[in-house]
């Protein structure tokens, strides 16, 4: 390729990438932090996906703020003050303080028109089995403390059947409303009188902007300080707060890791080349890689995940290898840019092909995040590589310094013995690896936020979005009947304390079949005379009694599902997913699961047609386990592919020698993770892929260098290894467990790859054990 063509190609390519990046950012590309975007996609059941969305969607922008104090009034006034602070911040689109239950109560009252067919499931059973006792109990209750009152008058509902039907909807975690604020009683949890006022605030779009210092987080910190001054307690939760924290943490980590890496590179280059030019060139190579990686990934995916950005920093680690390899070659005597390119191009080509293949093999894994990392890294590397090959020869000047000479005392030992000894040392460590495939390890969150989330979840009896029972049927009536069939089993599980509570739409929307049965039961109450004698004992006025009897024995009106859905509590309504072309679906949620609840629920679901137990987080962990195994296979595959490519070009013997460097480095890395008991999951495998890529680079650069170039090649990989270790070693201090594991895995592997690359030199050079004498620096 002519120099002129190269001269115009590179700026063109970069300009293109820049325009793509700007367009994507302009069209609202944003950083993704949703945990579920990282999950294996696979052939997801559309019902399950819709169900999960229905359960979690309302929470995407919701934040909950609880102010606690020793009296409800104090808690409420603190919440009002907090509401003002939140409102002033401009971060929220909506802040709910006033709770008005009137519309809801009116909607419930309207259901009274169908009272004949609406019975609580337990009451229907009791009326079928022993109506006399049931009616007797209702009478007794009227003489209890202040009797029984409800949303409707006694004359309208003398037996309390309708009140008892409504009762699950009346259940509310909010104990009271004081000064318009929902108050939750936490005295039982805290063993002292204590109340929380609950503030719902929806975050506006702007609060999601990625930054190292998200305004939402700053507001949270201020609120904590304010609460401490006011002597109240403050608890906060909600996806936006977690996102803000994750985004700040990741931005900090990226800045720190990127910053230290850059500082190390700057220091090394200035020290070695004594000129700012190679430094600027290296920065250009890294910048081109990041720009290209960002532009390509945004073009392909439309958005980037936080994890991709953190792991994508890998590009710096590898792309700097290419720059150093070329720049160090310029330390050779009588060097010209074109000579330099000839020297390093064979090694660079092989390195790029093998690295890109290795990283792209990640894309096979059905994890969207892994696929993003694969595309980001592979495209970033190509951009960096093109920058080295097209741009650097135009701009590099022969260096004034020279490469230092190196001595490695163990060089006299045969390579094969080194390999065997290493394997023997590593083998026990490999058996000590303990895999943990837990999706929660992906998420970094401060202990305070996690504790707040648990506390608020317990206090408000929040429904878990990650597990539920999915009921499907061909039509609405069957869907309701299938839920009805499920209720006795759920009740039994509750009595056996496998679960504390469950909620199903059918509890407040009986099927037509059940409505028919209910109507028969209520009219039987009239025909048997039980209702009449009850009302007489109660002393209900005769007019009232006659009206009620007439109502209960009239030809029944059926309550249609659509009407019912309009009137019932939203907590039940949201569980009704409705019908599409394939099926009608509804959810049954369960709360407070015991240890053995899951197998019991699975067994219950298996007994009923159209019923499925879904544990999303469990499925994810299962997916991570599968993909850890898959990634191991992919890693082996990448190494085999690399060996095959190298064998074709270098011969099998040399290929094996080169490939043994990354293989040994990976073993060392795994063994150290095993010995140290560090976290081992699918994300360690990504570190191993990086070690493989870098290990091959180091071995190839050194291997492909001619006899004279060996000294500069050795310098190049030493500098590359130093900067990479410095940069990625810091990942070990990350707040996110998987990123920290990535760092812990990477460092020993990189050190091993570097040392081994220097040792695994081709046999023709063995004998002297030192690099031929040249003027030293």
């Amino acid at each position, binding site marked *: 390729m002519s120099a002129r063509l190269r001269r115009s190609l590179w700026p063109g390519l970069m300009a293109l990438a820049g325009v793509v990046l700007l367009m994507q950012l302009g069209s609202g590309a944003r950083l993704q932090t949703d945990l579920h975007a990282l999950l294996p996609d696979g052939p997801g059941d559309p019902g399950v996906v819709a169900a999960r969305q229905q359960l979690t969607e309302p929470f995407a922008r919701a934040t909950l703020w609880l102010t606690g104090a020793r009296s*409800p009034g104090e808690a409420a006034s603190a919440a009002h003050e907090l509401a003002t602070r939140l409102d002033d911040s401009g971060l929220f689109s909506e802040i709910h303080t006033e709770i008005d*239950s009137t519309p809801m109560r009116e909607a419930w009252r309207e259901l009274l028109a169908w009272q004949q067919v609406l019975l609580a499931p337990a009451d229907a059973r009791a009326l079928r089995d022993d109506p006399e006792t049931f009616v007797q109990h209702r009478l*007794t209750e009227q003489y*209890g403390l202040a009797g029984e*009152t409800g949303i409707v008058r006694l004359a309208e509902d003398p037996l309390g059947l309708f009140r008892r039907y409504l009762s699950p909807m009346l*259940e509310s975690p909010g104990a*009271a409303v004081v000064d318009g604020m929902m108050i939750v009683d936490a005295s039982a949890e805290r063993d002292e009188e204590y109340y929380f006022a609950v503030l719902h605030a929806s975050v506006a779009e702007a609060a999601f902007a990625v930054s190292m210092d998200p305004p939402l987080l700053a507001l949270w910190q201020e609120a904590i300080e304010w609460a401490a001054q006011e002597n109240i307690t403050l608890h906060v939760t909600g996806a936006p707060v977690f996102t803000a924290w994750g985004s700040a943490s990741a931005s900090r980590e990226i800045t720190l890791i990127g910053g230290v890496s850059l500082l190390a590179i700057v220091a090394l280059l200035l020290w070695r080349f004594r000129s700012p030019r190679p430094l600027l060139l290296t920065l250009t190579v890294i910048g081109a890689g990041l720009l290209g990686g960002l532009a390509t990934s945004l073009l392909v995916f439309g958005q980037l995940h936080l994890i991709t950005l953190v792991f994508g920093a890998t590009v710096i680690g590898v792309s700097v290898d290419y720059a150093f390899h070329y720049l160090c070659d310029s330390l050779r005597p009588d060097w010209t840019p074109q000579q330099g390119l000839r020297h390093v191009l064979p090694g660079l080509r092989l390195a790029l092909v093998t690295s890109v293949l290795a990283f792209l093999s990640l894309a096979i894994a059905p994890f969207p995040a892994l696929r993003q990392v694969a595309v980001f890294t592979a495209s970033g590397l190509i951009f960096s590589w093109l920058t080295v090959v097209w741009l650097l020869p135009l701009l590099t000047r022969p260096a004034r310094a020279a490469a230092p000479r190196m001595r490695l005392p163990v060089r006299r030992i045969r390579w094969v013995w080194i390999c065997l000894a290493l394997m023997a040392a590593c083998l026990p460590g490999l058996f000590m690896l303990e895999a943990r495939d837990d999706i929660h390890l992906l998420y970094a969150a401060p202990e305070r936020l996690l504790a707040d989330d648990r506390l608020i979840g317990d206090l408000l009896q929040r429904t878990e979005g990650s597990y539920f029972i999915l009921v499907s049927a061909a039509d609405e009536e069957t869907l309701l009947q299938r839920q009805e069939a499920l209720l006795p089993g759920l009740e039994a599980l509750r009595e056996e304390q496998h679960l*504390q509570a469950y909620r199903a739409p059918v509890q407040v929307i009986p099927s037509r079949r059940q409505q028919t049965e209910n109507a028969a039961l209520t009219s039987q109450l009239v025909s048997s005379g039980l209702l009449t004698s009850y009302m007489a004992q109660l002393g209900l006025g005769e007019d009232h009694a006659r009206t009620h009897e007439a109502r209960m024995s009239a030809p029944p009106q059926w309550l249609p599902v659509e009407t019912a859905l309009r009137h019932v509590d939203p907590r039940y309504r949201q569980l009704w997913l409705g019908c599409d072309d394939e099926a009608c679906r509804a959810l049954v949620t369960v709360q407070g699961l015991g240890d053995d609840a899951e197998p019991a629920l699975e067994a219950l679901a298996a007994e009923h047609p159209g019923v499925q137990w879904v544990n999303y987080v469990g499925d994810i962990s299962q997916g991570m386990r599968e993909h850890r195994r898959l990634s191991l296979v992919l890693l082996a595959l990448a190494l085999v592919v690399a060996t095959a490519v190298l064998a074709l070009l270098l011969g099998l013997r040399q290929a094996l020698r080169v490939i043994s460097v990354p293989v040994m480095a990976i073993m060392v890395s795994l063994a150290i993770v095993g010995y140290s008991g560090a976290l081992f999951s699918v994300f360690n495998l990504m570190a191993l892929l990086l070690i493989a890529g870098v290990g091959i680079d180091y071995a190839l650069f050194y291997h492909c260098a001619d006899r004279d170039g060996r000294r500069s090649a050795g310098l190049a990989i030493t500098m590359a290894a130093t900067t990479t270790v410095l940069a990625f070693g810091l990942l070990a201090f990350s707040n996110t467990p998987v990123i920290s594991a990535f760092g812990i895995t990477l460092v020993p592997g990189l050190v091993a790859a570097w040392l081994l690359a220097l040792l695994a030199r081709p046999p023709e050079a063995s004998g002297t054990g030192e690099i031929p004498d040249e003027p030293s620096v």
Partner: protein
Amino acid sequence: MIRPGAALMLVVLWWPLASLAAGDTDIPLPELDAHDITRGEFTQIRQLPELTRPLRSSGRFVHDVDRGILWQVDEPAPSTLVITPGGLYRNGERQSGASPMTTLRPVFRALFSGDMARLQDHFEVTTKAVDVGWELELSPRDSSLADALATITLSGDEYPHKVVIEEGEGGRTELRFAAIEHPETLDEQTQQVFERVGKAAP
């Protein structure tokens, strides 16, 4: 939705236990002795416009500052209600779902702690001049309570004698207390009642 009786009972049972610091409030509230355990008899008369005659019931009650409240109806039909910090139990069975009583638990505990200021967290309290003893009128600050009960009137002298709950739509419940005493310990039977519901709790 909220039963007036709950607040009422609380107020009533709290009464003999509270010792009021007059300096805490600008309303001159009666000062009563504090006791850990209170036992007594009650008569309840409940009147509703749709009823031709009032519902009369009578029985015994126990309040234990730590364990909770036992409300035992003897006439016309026996039934028991236990309210503990852990929940509400009717005839030994835990009442799940919407029990207005459980939603009033904070009110109960505020009152039974013997801290008069707590009463004013939940109610607007006004005193009424009467010839003998005292009379207090409470109106709930909790808007969800206000639907179910308009006012609670307490009256008594050394002990509370009478509680009247006026409901919004013409309902009226009157509770009268008699034979109030303060034993040192609970009798075995009552202890067992509390222990049984303690075990029934999740």
